[in-house]
């Protein structure tokens, strides 16, 4: 058993739902107890879908336990077929049904439905949501794709987008346009937007774009092995990665791509412009799914001029990749699905910015550190109405704006330093565009058992002299916590019991970069 409050990933059957919901003409019959229908609202609320997910639940109750549940499953399966007339059906168990050991695959097979029935084995007590999506898509591809003659023109499939995917909707559009520029047409986007019929035609493409390895890597590998379709390894998020992606495609199709129109790309100039000078060396911490963290690390260091002080991911499937990446950046990799560990890492590293998930946004809020969201899991505000891809040229523009927005911009940071005694720039005012800035909490107001308040002392043996305490308050709030901790550590290391103004500045000089 493991005590959990927050989970980065849902159970694997939610991953299967993401595949089913992304597709058309496919229905998922899920053997699950009453109550598991809660997952519908992820799609109808967070993603704001106007249709119910194509999922029929058996919703068995205590009185059904026993021989009854197998019948219930068959009835649900038949009803779902009769009502929705899907082109194909996937069947499987949720965590509770896994325990009662009805065999949905076997039961459905004996019913003789006139459409393909694909059984799913999703081990709920070992694996999670992303595995569920990857495995489900792989099984669908394995069951439904057929050998096809290659299209005359050069085409590819875009694989990986699903329901409830972070910016999947707009990434597809941006990537389709980019590929068109290179002279590659899209044969099929899957699972999102595909029907079982479309899946059967996957083999006609010349190659596959592995857009999100988390949800399609198994399928990509199988397609390579079975239909000799190579797949791209670079995810085109960020300027450099997009250029690498274009080069990779050129190599796969065996001809140069010619002049690529990147006139819409603004990140390089924005990042080079003088107002961005203050971004230099901003210390950032990265956490999320492996794919987005990998992409974000490169953008952060090479395209924004940040310093990556820590990175990690929650999906263990990619632990090896992320460890290798961390090595490149000279930092420790954090592979965990426990948000408390992430919180501890952030506290220790005291970054100036966090790039993470919805959870890190809240950790950032609590610690008074600016944060931008780069990865699922996300909340409703990260399924925006406006066009906001992550991939390609427009994706780079979106990322620049998103990351810079929570930071105090150059001129403003300068003013805050210059006029920090001024009543309008007093230290609790915070960045002007933040309406309700995270006001630093008083150390005395720390709640028992939870988190140390912003700027709380690390030690109780060390006393701050009044002048030093006053001087500390002059330091802008967003770095004050770090200054306090550094000074106390500096004092503790030297056995100094009382911190004076001198100690404060000696510590500042000591830690100066």
């Amino acid at each position, binding site marked *: *058993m*493991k*005590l*959990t*409050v*927050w*989970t980065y*990933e*849902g*159970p694997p059957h*939610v991953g299967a739902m993401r595949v089913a919901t992304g597709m058309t003409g496919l229905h998922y019959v899920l053997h699950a*107890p*009453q*109550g*598991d*229908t*809660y*997952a*519908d*609202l*992820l799609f*109808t*609320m967070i993603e*704001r*879908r*106007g*249709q*119910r997910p194509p999922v*029929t*639940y*058996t*919703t*068995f*109750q*205590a009185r*059904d*336990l026993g021989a009854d549940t197998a019948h219930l499953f068959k009835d*649900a399966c038949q*009803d779902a077929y009769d*009502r929705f007339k899907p082109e194909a059906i996937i069947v499987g168990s*949720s*965590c*509770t049904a896994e*325990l*009662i050991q009805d065999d949905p695959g076997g039961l459905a097979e004996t019913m003789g439905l006139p459409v393909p029935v694909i059984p799913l084995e999703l*081990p*709920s*007590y*070992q694996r*999670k949501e992303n595995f569920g999506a990857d495995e489900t898509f792989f099984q669908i591809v394995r069951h439904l794709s057929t050998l096809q003659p290659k299209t005359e023109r050069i085409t590819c499939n875009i694989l990986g987008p699903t329901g409830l995917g972070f910016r999947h909707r707009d990434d597809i559009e941006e990537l389709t346009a980019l590929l068109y520029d290179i002279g590659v047409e899209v044969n099929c986007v899957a699972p999102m937007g595909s029907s079982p019929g479309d899946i059967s035609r996957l083999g006609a493409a010349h190659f596959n774009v592995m857009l999100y390895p988390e949800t399609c890597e198994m399928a990509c590998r199988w397609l390579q092995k079975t239909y000799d379709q190579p797949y791209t390894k670079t995810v085109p998020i960020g300027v450099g990665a997009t250029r690498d992606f274009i080069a990779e495609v050129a190599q796969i199709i065996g001809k140069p791509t010619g002049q690529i129109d990147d006139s819409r790309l603004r990140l390089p100039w924005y990042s080079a412009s003088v107002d961005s000078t203050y971004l230099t060396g901003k210390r950032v911490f990265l956490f999320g799914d492996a794919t987005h963290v990998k992409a974000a690390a490169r953008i952060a260091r090479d395209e924004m001029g940040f310093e990556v002080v820590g990175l990690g991911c929650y999906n263990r499937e990619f632990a090896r990749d992320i460890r290798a990446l961390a090595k490149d950046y000279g930092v420790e990799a954090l592979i965990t699905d426990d948000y408390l560990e992430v919180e501890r890492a952030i506290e220790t590293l005291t970054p100036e910015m966090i790039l993470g998930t919805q*959870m890190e946004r*809240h950790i950032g*809020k*609590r610690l008074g550190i600016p944060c931008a969201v780069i990865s699922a899991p996300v*909340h409703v505000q990260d399924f925006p109405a406006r066009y906001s891809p992550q991939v390609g040229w427009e994706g780079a523009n979106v990322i620049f704006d998103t990351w810079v927005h929570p930071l105090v911009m150059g001129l403003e940071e300068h003013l805050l330093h210059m006029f920090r005694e001024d009543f309008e720039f007093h230290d609790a005012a915070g960045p002007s565009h933040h309406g309700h800035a995270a006001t630093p909490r008083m150390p005395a107001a720390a*709640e*028992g*058992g*939870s*988190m140390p308040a912003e700027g709380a002392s690390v030690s109780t043996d060390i006393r701050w002299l009044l002048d030093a305490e006053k001087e500390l308050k002059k330091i802008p709030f967003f770095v004050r916590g770090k200054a306090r901790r550094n000074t106390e550590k500096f004092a503790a290391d030297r056995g100094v019991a009382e911190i004076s103004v001198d100690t404060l500045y000696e510590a500042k000089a000591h830690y100066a970069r």
Partner: protein
Amino acid sequence: MNKPAALTQGSCRDAPILKERGQREVFCGLTGIIWLHRKMQDAFFLVVGSRTCAHLLQSAAGVMIFAEPRFGTAILEEKDLAGLADAHEELDREVGRLLERRPDIKQLFLVGSCPSEVIKIDLSRAAERLTKIHAPHVRVLNYSGSGIETTFTQGEDACLESMVPVLPKTEAAELLLVGALPDVVEDQALKLLDDMGVGPVRVLPAGRADGIPAIGSNTKFALLQPFLGETAAALTRRGAHHIPAPFPFGEEGTTLWLRAIADQFGVDDDTFERVTAAPRARARKAVAAHAADLTGKSIFFFPDSQLELPLARFLTRECGMHALEVGAPYIHKGLVGPDMDLLHAEVISEGQDVDKQLDRCRAARPDLTVCGLGLANPLEAEGLATKWAIELVFTPVHFYEQAGDLAGLFSRPLRRKGLLKMEAAE
């Protein structure tokens, strides 16, 4: 007292009930934790379940999950399923760690889930054992919030029921109010009763472990919520007497609820009138402001919380709506009978086959549909105005001062539908 003017005549207590079985689009009882933990300030709710349970709580709790909530899930892992002997050791260890980290916790609820019920982890024995280990500082109780046994608000019923056997005994003649309400609403109820001289009044659940009420054969209890059937039965088993009444929604519901208690405690008509006249007038006025948007409109309830019948009674009688179908997950006539006496609805249904019910809803084309979040946007996309039901459980809606707000929850989606105009301006 003045009899409230009946706007719609009828009684559906003996009307045939459409009972359905099939796919149920409802929450499980674990969801009750979301509001129960806010009410019981020194309690922690530990679900023993799967990742699905943790994911459900996270999805239902929304933003609350980030405020150091007093609930969590001990997620069963592969090795817990292999042999049962381990499960208890594992649980003891997790509970030990939890209580060490949260010394402020006085009551710990081990909450059963579908997985823990199916593999039959004996959580009641675990609760007894852990109570001994952690006594006297922490009391450990157990109930099931599993989907196979409970639907949504029944989780609160199961939780309160688990507390009844361990309530201290008393012979005092006291009134017990049962059901977790927002503090502001509870205070209003207590003040009204106090002004009438009814008392002493206790509440279950209490805000803190030290406020736990006592109970005995002289206790009379009134329910604040219609979904507390098991709790009512447990209280009755301990000798307490139930005061049947319609539930305190709207001016009429609140007045009838207070009247039933006042009658039991010998409050005279003049006192009753003096205490209730002003808030009744206020409530009627506040409801009237919204009733204009609701009068003559039809409403269709999907089953969710068991609040459906009392709410339909309020909306038909005080807001002039017309009830097409009122669906409830369970209908406990002993509790909602007084509401059914006052309600006229074309169809009353219990249980659910969601696809068939959706067919009926589409055919009826109601002006307003009350349903869960999994159905709301899809129905809106089909052009039907909806009111999502879960809000009715979280928002203060009981008693006089909230009567207007309650009507407002239903009129707002209709007003919004009227306001949005996307066409060109000619």
